Structures are given as C-alpha cells and as structure tokens.
C-alpha cells in the first residue's frame, strides 16, 4: 500500500513570494490534514478536510494561507505572500475516518521543508 505522497520535498523562496504544496493521501482515506511543524516544536494542525469539505481551519492564517481538496482526493496548500516566520516543515496526513469511538490512525507524509529568505 502506497503511503502519503507530498511534493516538493524542499522549497526555498524569498519573502513575499508565493508557494504551493501538494499532497496525495492514502487511497480510500476520507480525512486529510495539513500540519505546520516549526523547528523544535510539535506539528500544529492548520486545516482538516473530510472528503472535500473543511472540518476545522481555525488555526489557518487565512490572510495568507489557503487550501483546497476539490475532488476529495489530493490537496494543495498555498501561501501567498510568504513571511520569514512561515519557514517550517509542512506535513500532510490522512486517515480512514472510522465511526466515532474507534481508533483512527493518522498516516503522515514525508513533509515539505520550506525556507523563506
């Protein structure tokens, strides 16, 4: 079974530029997550999708970040314009979305390391 795929693996941009990250979840996984992991910290949830609908985007800086999952499969996270503090690893994860009360393991992709100069 293929894992969660992400691209690119690395990206270096200058501040005020735009950047986009792509994620393809495990086949059949209805739930997709985007996390931001700043160096030395744990991942922080940015946005969660259930199929193509947003479940939680309360921690997404909506003035500069946007995400979509148009067909309920792969997803794109965009930053426009980027700031220095956006330098981080952006992790995508997916899960089956089983009924409530049953363990729903999240499987993580390898991440995209973003450096904003």
């Amino acid at each position, binding site marked *: 079974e293929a894992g969660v795929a992400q691209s690119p693996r690395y990206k270096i941009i200058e501040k005020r530029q735009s950047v986009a990250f792509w994620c393809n979840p495990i086949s059949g996984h209805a*739930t997709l*997550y985007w996390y931001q992991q700043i160096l*030395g*910290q*744990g*991942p*922080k*949830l940015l946005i*969660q999708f259930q199929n193509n609908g947003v*479940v*939680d985007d309360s921690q997404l800086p909506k003035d500069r970040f946007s995400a979509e999952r148009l067909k309920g499969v792969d997803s794109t996270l965009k930053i426009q314009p980027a700031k220095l503090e956006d330098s981080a*690893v952006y*992790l995508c*994860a997916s*899960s089956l*979305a089983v009924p*409530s*009360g049953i*363990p*729903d*393991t*999240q*499987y*993580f992709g*390898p*991440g995209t*390391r973003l450096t904003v100069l």
Partner: protein
Amino acid sequence: GIQVEQSPPDLILQEGANSTLRCNFSDSVNNLQWFHQNPWGQLINLFYIPSGTKQNGRLSATTVATERYSLLYISSSQTTDSGVYFCAVSDSARQLTFGSGTQLTVLP
C-alpha cells in the same frame, strides 16, 4: 485548548539502556497517541492509548487517564530508536494537539 507537556526535552542514552518518556495533559482526552519522528522527519504512529497499557516489542506505553499522564517505555534501546518522540491528544474527533517532543539520542 488542551495543553500537552512532555519530559524530558532531551535524553541521551547508551545503546542497551532503558528509558521512560512522560506526557502530561491538562484535560480529559478520548484519544492519545505516541509518535516517533525519525532523523529524516518521517512521523510514525507507535501507539493509540487513551487508557491502559500496551506493548509492542521493546516499546510499551501506559496511560493513566484519571491522573492525566502517559508514559512511553523503551527497553534495550538501539541506535535506530533515535529521533523525536511526540505525544498527541484530542478531546474531540480527529483533531490532535501535539506536545513539543522528547529528543532521544542513542549512542553506539
């Protein structure tokens, strides 16, 4: 939201030694997971353990939900155990809050 604290922040061991990592959380949870992030950044789920005890090879975990803490035990550590260990909790469906992790280095 829920606060998650992990200790120690850093741990250096000689190969073969045992260790205990701790996770404290500030409120009742219905989901607690332990993850290992290897030196290449890949996050791997180790345990789903909102309560009770589980074992998987040299790793085991115990969560005492009433006292709001969880422990991860690593026995006979190997160099491949190096990396960052994260505890993540949730008080609702799916949304996990991660701690800041324990950086483990196992020396040969």
